[in-house]
């Protein structure tokens, strides 16, 4: 891997707007949202600015910390981080990782969204994908966690909705059976079927907020339950009424229900984002979603503010400290172009890039190759243990800017099974170093 792009600096002629903040967080993914939560909890004045919502909107919804761990997940990460200090887990440190996970669960709980994990052994759960694969993850929303196959003793019933395009129960059940898991599928009717031709998961989830709707579904499912130990649905079992809708549906069907993540948009992500946004607003933070940050304004190796595209003209927002949670290649925190250039768009921070001749080698020939493609594995910012991005000489590029999540070099968020764990660990660490808090 090689470093490119010298650091550029520049002042701004644009007048500042709004009060000066202690912290500006850029990005509204898991890292950005949790960085804002940590900073608010530390008593800071916080502004969260983001072009859009982050990757939680499209992921399955579970929290991958170290999916490959066979037994104790935390122990596995600790061991790995000790051997790989350059890895984001190594940079953030074990304690930040544990605290980051714990504080995420508390924050989610505080907004009424319980996330579960295997407390008794600390292992990963074994969760079901849309296509019926078994995927490991450490933490998941309650409905998805209820599908953990580890303690499964009896058959599964998988329920689909006739005519709904985003879930094929027989395919899920069939692939589960191939793996020795006793599963069968049924389809139930949705009332007024002509309306469903372009329904997204969120549209269905809002219907499941209604007790009457749940009743109509439960009535159709109940006769098919038989010896099933649990009943699986696509992950659309409620939006505003969640997780109350889960308990109610379980009670009506007479078996525990669980959820299988769907194609994007992720209902779990929508719920989490919206509730954390409202929580931040209630706590006095400013939240600006839909406002792209154009660039950082740097004076003498300090960022003094960011220019934001809003209200028809750029506006400068000032703060003492800045948390970059803009994401990686997928999210726009790292940009690429046809000539093979790879860059960080806000501060032109030096980016680690794949050591290849041309962009032809950003990808391997095989799509689903085991460790993924160089453009995702070998791209990102190099940081110190305070999570400050480094310049070419290895010194912090800016005194008061901290980087988190998928913006960091050293892992492939698509294949390594740790994307959410790194987001949570680094968000925690970045805020604690930025605000000089005791970890």
């Amino acid at each position, binding site marked *: 891997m090689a470093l490119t792009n010298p650091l550029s600096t520049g002042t701004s002629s644009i007048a500042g707007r709004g009060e000066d903040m202690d912290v500006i967080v850029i990005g509204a993914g898991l890292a950005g949202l949790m960085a804002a939560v940590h900073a608010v909890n530390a008593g800071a004045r916080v502004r969260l600015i983001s072009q859009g919502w982050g990757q939680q909107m499209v992921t399955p919804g579970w929290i991958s910390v170290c999916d490959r761990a066979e037994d104790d997940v935390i122990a596995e990460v600790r061991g790995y981080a000790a051997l790989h200090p350059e890895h984001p887990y190594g940079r953030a440190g074990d304690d930040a990782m544990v605290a980051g996970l714990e504080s995420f669960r508390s924050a989610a709980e505080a907004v009424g969204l319980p996330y579960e994990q295997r407390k008794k052994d600390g292992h990963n759960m074994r969760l079901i994908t*849309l296509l*019926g694969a078994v995927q490991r993850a450490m933490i998941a929303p309650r409905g998805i966690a209820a599908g953990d196959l580890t303690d499964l003793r009896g058959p599964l019933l998988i329920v689909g909705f006739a005519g709904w*395009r985003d879930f*094929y129960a027989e395919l899920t059940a069939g692939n589960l059976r191939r793996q020795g898991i006793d599963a069968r599928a049924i389809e139930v009717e949705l009332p007024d079927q002509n309306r469903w031709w372009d329904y997204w998961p969120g549209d269905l989830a809002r219907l499941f907020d209604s007790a009457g709707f749940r009743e109509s579904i439960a009535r159709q499912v109940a006769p098919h339950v038989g010896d099933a130990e649990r009943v699986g649905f696509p992950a659309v079992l409620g939006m505003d009424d969640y997780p109350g809708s889960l308990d109610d549906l379980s009670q009506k069907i007479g078996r525990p229900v669980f959820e299988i993540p769907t194609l994007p948009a992720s209902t779990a992500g929508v719920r989490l984002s919206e509730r954390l946004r409202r929580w931040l607003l209630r706590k006095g933070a400013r939240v600006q979603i839909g406002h792209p940050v154009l660039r950082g304004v740097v004076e003498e190796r300090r960022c003094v503010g960011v220019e934001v595209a809003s209200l028809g003209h750029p506006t400068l927002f000032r703060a003492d400290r800045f948390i970059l949670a803009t994401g990686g290649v997928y999210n726009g925190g790292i940009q690429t172009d046809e000539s093979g250039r790879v860059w960080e768009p806000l501060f032109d921070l030096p980016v680690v890039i794949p050591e290849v001749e041309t962009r032809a080698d950003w*990808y391997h020939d095989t799509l689903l190759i085991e460790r993924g493609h160089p453009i995702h594995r070998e791209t990102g910012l190099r940081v110190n243990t305070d999570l400050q991005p480094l310049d070419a000489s290895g010194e912090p590029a800016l005194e008061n800017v901290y980087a988190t999540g998928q913006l960091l070099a050293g892992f492939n968020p698509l294949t390594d099974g740790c994307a959410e764990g790194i987001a949570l660990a680094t968000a925690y660490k970045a805020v604690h170093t930025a605000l000089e808090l005791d970890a």
Partner: protein
Amino acid sequence: METTSVDVLVIGGGATGAAAAYDLARRGVKVLLVEQNDLTTGTSGRYHGLLHSGGRYVVSDFDTAVECITENRILRRIAPFAIEDTGGMFVATSQDPADFPAKWAQACAKAGIAAEKLTPEQARAAEPALTHDIAAAYRVPDASCDSFDLNHGFITAARTFGGDAWIYQKVTGFLRDGDQVVGAEMVDTRTGEQRRVHAACVLNATGPWAGVVAGLLGLDVMIRLDRGAMVAMNIRWVNTVINRLRPPSDGDILVPVGTVCVLGTTSIRTEDPADKRVEVWEVSKILNEADPVVPGIRHGRALRAWAGVRPLYEPPAELAQAETGHDVSRRFAVIDHTERDGLRGFVTVVGGKLTTCRLMAEHAVDVVCKQLGISARCTTADEPLPVPEASPRHYHRLTKRVDQQEHGELPGALICECEVVTQPQLEAHIASYGDQPVALDDLRRDLRLGMGPCQAGFCGYRAAGILQRVRQTTPEEATRALGDFVSERFRGVRPLLYGHHVRQFALDELIYRRTLGLDTLLNLDQPQAEEVRDGAD
């Protein structure tokens, strides 16, 4: 073995073969066309969509230019359903040779190509995306052409006149009676079934495969295979065909086709008639050549890249004299193997352009008819083709599909949002394959499933679920069908993975790996394979 008898067997379901089948049928000849894949899957389908006015060749190859303008007028008249009258422009920038435009305009006048000189202001008023650096601009009667629609039109018309076409029939050998070819043997590439077709004459219209097919008879047809890449941008950057006003070279054309804008092309010698590679440097070259004419297009969003193989005919010097006897231009050739090789009942047509496909067919069919002693003359230019109403190709018009969807005429779940393909359409189409195997890629070709910006990220899974339900396939098969489909889509977009497309494809990869666990499921069979190996050791 199943045996059929016809007067003429046409091999090749591209534009020339289809036009020849139509021509023969109109002359009252009993004709059968066979194609090794689906129709329009070779060079004709891997085409940029430009119906030439002839302007592009008028300086370098005057005869071809004259053929182009003549055929351009004929195709507009006989196949209006396949053509959008976009008009064309030739634009020179200050970087292009300054003496070329005058020479070009003179040649156009001589060839009968109406070239109307425009001021830079007029050119930009018509096409605001054009550069401000316009040294010369002319309007010409170019158009854009949907080669799938055109081909389907020829085949439908051929059937109306009693002809027929079979697809997925690969010719494996010929039937001979002394120095006379009397038919061919073929195998159904989907079922493995073998067939024999007796014919008094066989027309080899196989484009880049012409040498391979003639080789089955021990004949030597020299063609030069030349691969060209094209890039489709996600919007119509221009509504007029834009040609670079300079001697023909790489990256000269922008063609508005349907909802996209196709940029082309490159020229690379290849030995493989099935060569579909697109190299990253070709994409860069095409974008960088288009950028001076339409500034900023280099940073636009490229949707797909593909390559076609041009079958260029270059007669060996000692044969050149014989070729001129056939009264054909240098750009395409009809080879009567009776004269050249002493073999009767076999005719090869090679070279040419899609724009001149009807003319190539006419010349080839003239030679075929001469061999058969048929005196009927070509009438394919005389009246319009019947509009192929029942064709699945009407799905190609995205605006029409959106309109139908919004007004309830395309009921059912929307499976492919990018290209507006619904569940009932998919189900009906899968059912139409009967017992034949059907891949998701077949549905893509027929219905445009997965051809939009997301390149199957969402609709791939949905289509696999529907395929399993309709065909009652095993979950392994459905999962593998999905794996094959998304891998194929990946190959198509790989040279374009930068900028927005890297992000789009990262979402697709996220869905395949994390949401679906497709990689995990495709690997389920791997450990078993290892066990077998261990056992063998």
